[in-house]
């Protein structure tokens, strides 16, 4: 029982990341009709927004400490972050400690901008081309973005810790009446799940309850008619691309403390997120979210020792296996609408 609860919890945070990425993918596909293989790279760039902001916050001036020596025997150079000079040492240290949550504010404009540049600069030119071309160009773009990040940040993962307040883990076992110390779960992962829930809720509310969202939904249903009504739907769809980029970026920012960001992390999530979109149903936002959590939890269960003993290697194929089964029984995915990609 404890093991099952733990694996459900485990699935939730991974599922949150899948759901956020898949949500963005579905938004782009539903509005612009583009299959965006660079979406994983946007997630990765989001994580590097957190890395970048913590680098900016720890930007330092060098003081030479004559009493100590470095590895070559020269006087030791000590870095004093500028924020210490501006805000005092205690406040400065707190600001640096909270770099990841602060990165949310930093990442939203940056990611929107990157999204808009991507859409206007490159993807726009591929709307009328076949899906295969779109996949190739966005996949190529993903590789370019990865290499740019690797050039500036190196290939090794960069530790980006959560604030000290969230260090440690919550003892669910004690809270639920099980033995203490058996069902424990890191605070930051709980924060991630809550954060994902808020973002997903906000995106749905935005589409459901604002005029802008209504127009976008109308455009997704029937682009031509909306255009004929004199609404510049393309402009709104471009903004939706920026929004989707921001969602992926925020998913990346908050994921940075869970796994140290490296240039390759986007690709690791991308393929699975596509499976999530297909399983959820192409173009269905609730489907993407539901499938994200479902596959995240299933993947966790498949990694359990007891399961692996019976079915070795199942942890590596479970997601694809489930995808095959769902597509065989429900070819449009869990919540797919009729007519999407079926012309």
């Amino acid at each position, binding site marked *: 029982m404890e093991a099952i609860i733990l694996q459900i919890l485990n699935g939730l945070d991974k599922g949150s990341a899948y759901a956020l990425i898949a949500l963005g993918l579905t938004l782009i596909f539903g509005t612009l009709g583009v299959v965006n293989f660079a979406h994983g790279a946007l997630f990765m760039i989001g994580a590097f927004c957190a890395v970048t902001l913590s680098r900016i916050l720890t930007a330092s001036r060098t003081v030479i400490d004559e009493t100590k020596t470095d590895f070559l025997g020269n006087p030791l150079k000590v870095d004093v972050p500028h924020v210490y000079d501006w805000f005092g040492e205690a406040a400065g240290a707190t600001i640096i400690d909270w770099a990841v949550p602060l990165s949310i504010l930093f990442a939203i404009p940056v990611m929107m901008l990157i999204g808009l540049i991507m859409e206007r600069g490159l993807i726009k030119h591929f709307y009328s081309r076949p899906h295969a071309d779109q996949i190739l160009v966005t996949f190529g773009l993903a590789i370019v973005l990865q290499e740019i990040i690797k050039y500036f940040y190196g290939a090794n993962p960069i530790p980006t810790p959560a604030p000290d307040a969230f260090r440690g883990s919550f003892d669910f076992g004690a809270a639920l009446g099980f033995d203490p110390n058996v069902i424990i779960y890191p605070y930051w992962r709980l924060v991630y799940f809550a954060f994902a829930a808020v973002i997903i809720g906000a995106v749905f509310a935005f589409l459901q309850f604002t005029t802008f969202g209504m127009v976008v939904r109308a455009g997704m249903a029937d682009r031509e008619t909306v255009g004929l009504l004199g609404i510049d739907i393309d402009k709104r769809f471009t903004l939706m691309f920026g929004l989707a980029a921001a969602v992926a970026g925020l998913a990346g920012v908050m994921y940075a403390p869970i*796994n140290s960001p490296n240039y390759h992390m986007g690709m690791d999530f991308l393929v699975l997120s596509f499976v999530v979109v297909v399983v959820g149903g192409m173009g269905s936002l609730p489907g993407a979210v539901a499938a994200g959590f479902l596959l995240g939890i299933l993947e966790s269960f498949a990694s359990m020792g007891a399961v692996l003993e019976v079915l070795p290697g199942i942890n590596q194929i479970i997601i694809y296996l489930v995808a095959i089964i769902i597509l065989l029984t429900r070819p449009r995915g869990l919540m797919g609408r009729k007519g999407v990609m079926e012309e």
Partner: protein
Amino acid sequence: MSKTNLTRRGVLKTSAIAGAGLAVPTIFTASSASAFTNEPMGSTVTLGFNVPQSGPYADEGADELRAYELAVEHLNGGGDGGMMNTFSSKELQGNGILGKKVEYVTGDTQTKSDAARASAKSMIEKDGAIMITGGSSSGVAVAVQALCQEAGVIFMAGLTHSNDTTGKDRKANGFRHFFNSYMSGAALAPVLAAEYGTDRKAYHLTADYNWGYTTEEAVRASTEALGWETVNAVKTPLTATDFSAYITPVLQSGADTLVLNHYGGNMVNSLTNAVQFGLRDKQVNGKDFQIVVPLYSRLMARGAGANVKGIFGSTNWHWSLQDEGSKAFVKSFGEKYGFPPSQAAHTTYVQTLLYADAVQRAGSFAPCAVAEALEDYEFDGLGNGPTLYRADDHQCFKDVLVVKGKENPQSEFDLLEIVEVTPVEQVTYPPDHPQMGGADATLGTCNNGA
């Protein structure tokens, strides 16, 4: 009546002389201008540096390349000479190798066996590389070593830690200076027993490939011999990034020690996850829960950040060593690049010097002559103390460092502290050890190519 005393070396020498004698009539004819693959004819000799320049080990590859460039500079008489000044052999004069200026070409292994073989092949066939060196993965090293054996060039392995490289997949043309899984287990186990006691229940998470298997086997064998019990060993996919699903079952297994047979990004992520889940704050079986990382690398310790503090592991070399060789190397590397070298940089630098020195002593670039010069060669002054290049399996035998993540690092490079220098006797094993492929493992015969 004379007593014949046949030794392996004697036979080799005799046959080499006989072979040379037989070859004399043809050696001067135009059709067989070279006696071995890529025989250097002009005033230069080309070495092939095959390192991961892209992919997950690119940072280690970059450090290896820096060390190679430094070694070439020193061989050609540039810089301060580095470890050439402390090396026990004084054959190298700073005038290249056998008077030929050293040049080099580089290839990108991408940490993929097929890409590594392709780039090694191209360096041998197109660029005329006489020796191939490099690697930052055992899968790659084993594949490239086999290719060099076929092509008839020497392979000087870089960072490769799997037993198989000089175990079941050993080759006559291949040589490894770096230590291996067996040595890590043999060095670590006594330190772990002394620190954590002999009554421990260990849970292994193992990277699902060649190196992971041999490391798990080695650490299990040596800890179990000291009384530890292995409660479970789970293989994790090499592509895994989030290890939480593998970490949480540890909590319910009754284990009080977690051994992470992971390297690179795997190690950074699994260790980070384990610490996030509070394993290190737990008490199991009345003991503090402990985590062990058998193979440490400073570049990776940096990726794991504060999570490495207090965690034991082993390493081939560390820049804080105070012997003359290490100090000389750290100085010339540090002054050129502005930071201390990694263990990957150290082993590749040493391998280049060892190769050059062997050619110099053999008086020939012919792979079989070089191999003979390296076999059972004893040297010192290259940072690991007295070292033997054993003839039976072409593995270097030297002291092994047991290290621990430093509690109070003084700088971004000061992440590991040396806990113990395990003497070479304790990590030496017979060439036909079961973990090394047993009695079936053989070097084969050395290949000079054509």
